[in-house]
């Protein structure tokens, strides 16, 4: 732990990289899983393909996915995208089922009322259907966020930054660095989770009103 205070600048730099590598994939994953979740909620065929596929993708070991990336997409070995894409895929895998189920659970009379009032489909989705799926989406985001913050460390094995570097360096020389990385990861995950939880409460006051 003392390592953190003795190397504060280095620590902040690692934190920034770690955070970037964890958050960017969550955002990308969210943007992708909303339309995919919608498609899965509307079509049985799409849901029969997308949901098992997302499960399979989730079972691919992260290290394997990271090392295979340069060969797949032609990126450089040390490009951050090699971590971002796999983590985005995991995020999609975690979110898509929940979003699809939540959209399906929007009561038929609510959708019918919206249509009958003159909503066009896109506006209806943005202002009525998706907002009702937000609680489930936030729950999925919290899992994806925490799991990404943990998994980013794997990137250190292929030379990408984040707290994972502390594990590799500490393994060779300094137990204190390992503890510093471990604790920093947990604290970061807790902070991110709390922020998302608060965001969820602010965005969905109606959920508590029903109880």
């Amino acid at each position, binding site marked *: 732990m003392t390592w953190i205070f003795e190397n504060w600048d280095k620590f902040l730099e690692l934190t920034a990289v770690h955070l970037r590598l964890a958050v960017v994939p969550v955002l990308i994953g969210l943007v992708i899983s909303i339309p995919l979740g919608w498609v899965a909620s509307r079509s049985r065929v799409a849901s029969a393909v997308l949901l098992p596929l997302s499960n399979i993708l989730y079972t691919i070991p992260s290290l394997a996915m990271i090392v295979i990336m340069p060969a797949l997409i032609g990126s450089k070995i040390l490009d951050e995208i090699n971590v971002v894409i796999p983590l985005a895929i995991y995020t999609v895998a975690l979110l898509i089922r929940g979003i699809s189920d939540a959209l399906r659970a929007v009561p038929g009379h609510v959708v019918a*009322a919206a249509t*009958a009032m003159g909503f066009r489909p896109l506006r209806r989705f943005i202002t009525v259907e998706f907002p009702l799926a937000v609680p489930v989406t936030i729950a999925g985001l919290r899992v994806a966020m925490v799991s990404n913050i943990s998994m980013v460390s794997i990137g250190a094995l292929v030379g990408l930054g984040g707290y994972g570097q502390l594990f590799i360096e500490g393994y060779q020389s300094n137990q204190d660095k390992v503890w510093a990385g471990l604790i920093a990861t947990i604290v970061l995950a807790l902070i991110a989770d709390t922020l998302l939880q608060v965001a969820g409460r602010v965005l969905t006051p109606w959920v508590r009103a029903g109880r």
Partner: protein
Amino acid sequence: MIEFRAVTKRFEDGTIAVDELDLVVEAGTITVFVGPSGCGKTTSLRMVNRMIDSTSGTILVDGKDVMSVDPPTLRLGIGYVIQQAGLFPHRTVLDNVATVPLLSGWDRKRARTRAAELLETVGLDSGFAKRYPAQLSGGQQQRVGVARALAADPPVLLMDEPFSAVDPIVREGLQDELLRLQGELGKTIVFVTHDIDEALKLGDRVAVFREGGHLAQYAKPAELLSAPANDFVASFAGRDRGYRTLTFLRADVPVREVTTATLGSTVTSNGWVLAVDENRRPVGWLSPVDGATEVTADKLISGGSLYDGSSLRAALDAALSSPSALGVTVDPDGAVVGVVQADDVLKALATARAAGEVPS
């Protein structure tokens, strides 16, 4: 005015939901579509705002073919109330009501002001504005549903079994409220229900549908009861339709005097005594006793329905449901004015019949 001209709806599997429907809904009136499930009443309603498109025929709303308008635009001008209200759970009551004005391009402030007015119109105080639908009872949600449909002041209102998911007492209140609102607003309303009593109560005219999407009869409620077009209508209108016909008859029934006494007083009478409160509102009956007796709450037998001068049905029911066989008659403030007897109601009916006032 809404006009159905030879409208047919055939679903993809070949079922005919509505068969050559010809019907005119007069402007400013309530027309009720009633019938058993699968009779095409809801399909007919939903073709008006193109939630369902007809297979053939024409539907005109105020002279304009609905097929010539893009559905979302058409719907902005047609209010819609659905069973279970269909309120948006994530929006406050006020924002739910402001939905259509906002969709129609009003600014937020004007839309909310209008929404607040409408909540008052449907009898919800301003305390409800900031609540969410889940915090409301079923009856309150349905009031919000009505307010939401009225928000942009559409000339036409479609109501799809709006009150069928609430309990009977609340439903009756909502029906009365709708009639009161309609008295003020004069909308062109199409109301779908499977409940014949609701249809007869609310409709200026009632369209009875039967299986296969056929219109069995389209008539005023009294005519439907007294002159059903066929056996289907006769049986659908129910066995006690003779009795229910009385709902639509107003005739003078002699109101007789009754001995009344306030609670706590002492009364001497050898007949039934009606106990009243300080405002002369009825509280119960005291059965006949010999000699003087004190009127106390524990001796009272609760009364039947009250007759307010509205219809022969109310008069007869008051008499039949009263423990003394005397129907308590009240003025608009609820104060006792006298009693009516079943015999007198039947005599009044006979007189009305002789005078040709009762269709037969």
